[in-house]
């Protein structure tokens, strides 16, 4: 088992004063890492990672084992959209999904494999089921990093 160190920082100077901060967190118990670069095609849903009850190959993980994941759109122009679906345990999955835009050069990160969409405020979440990417305007290259127990 290994420790994963994640640092986020942001800084901007306005009217002579610096705003922003730097945070570092150390996540212990990391046993599996996937660092991948892939082309996400334009206007087509593309499977990136899936989650299940057991580790199943290079791109399928146990949601409760997720420690950290990062998706970076390395393109300089086109956005990419992530569809993050979840499984509430009923026979047919997925049971809902959200969509997030990652503009050119930007990243999306998550430190947990729990997610849900509800019609009312929700505190008890479900396990992620699958993450898909879809570019618009042209293919984009995505840099992805995922660490699990």
């Amino acid at each position, binding site marked *: 088992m290994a420790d994963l160190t994640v*640092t*986020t920082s942001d800084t901007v100077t306005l009217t002579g004063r610096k705003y922003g901060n730097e945070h570092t967190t150390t996540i212990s118990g990391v046993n599996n890492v996937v660092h991948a670069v892939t082309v996400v095609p334009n206007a087509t849903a593309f499977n990136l990672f899936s989650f299940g009850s057991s580790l199943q190959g290079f791109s399928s993980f146990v949601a409760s084992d997720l420690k950290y994941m990062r998706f970076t759109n390395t393109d300089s122009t086109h956005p990419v959209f992530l569809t993050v679906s979840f499984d509430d345990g009923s026979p047919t999955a997925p049971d*809902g999904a959200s969509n997030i835009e990652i503009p050119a050069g930007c990243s999306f*990160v*998550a*430190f947990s494999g729990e997610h849900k969409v509800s019609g009312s405020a929700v505190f008890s979440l479900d396990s992620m089921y699958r993450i898909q990417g879809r570019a618009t305007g042209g293919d984009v290259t995505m840099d992805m990093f995922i660490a699990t127990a």
Partner: protein
Amino acid sequence: MSTLTTKITESVTLNGKSFGNEITKTHADIKTAKQTVVEVGTGSFMELFDFATSRTGIGTAQDAKAQYIRITNLDANNFVVINVYLDIATDEYIAFKIPAGGCFLLCEDKMDGGGSATTTLDQIDAVNARANSATVQVEVFIAEIN
């Protein structure tokens, strides 16, 4: 107007090999920056910030102007759940868990919770948070181009 520089670095060594990357992004034309630390309790969700068509106060961001949003859980033990609220025909609450020390990042103030894949997103109306078993401190940083 200023340039915001954001960076994400991750590093782990497994089998003697180092994995990870450093990602840097700059956002031009930043005019507004808001940075705050707030306590989030356990009993119910509290609003961290909201969005509106025009700027009405320090806690309200203008629609489509946010270039970078970071929510960091500063606690060492307890997690926090955030609900991204979309006020559309049917209310949608999009929930993510932020463990101790973790964060949630967005470079766009739009999301969708409709259940199927789409590239047409809705404006976020508010972001709410609730801690699990003890009050936690959360740091919020928002940079806007207005």
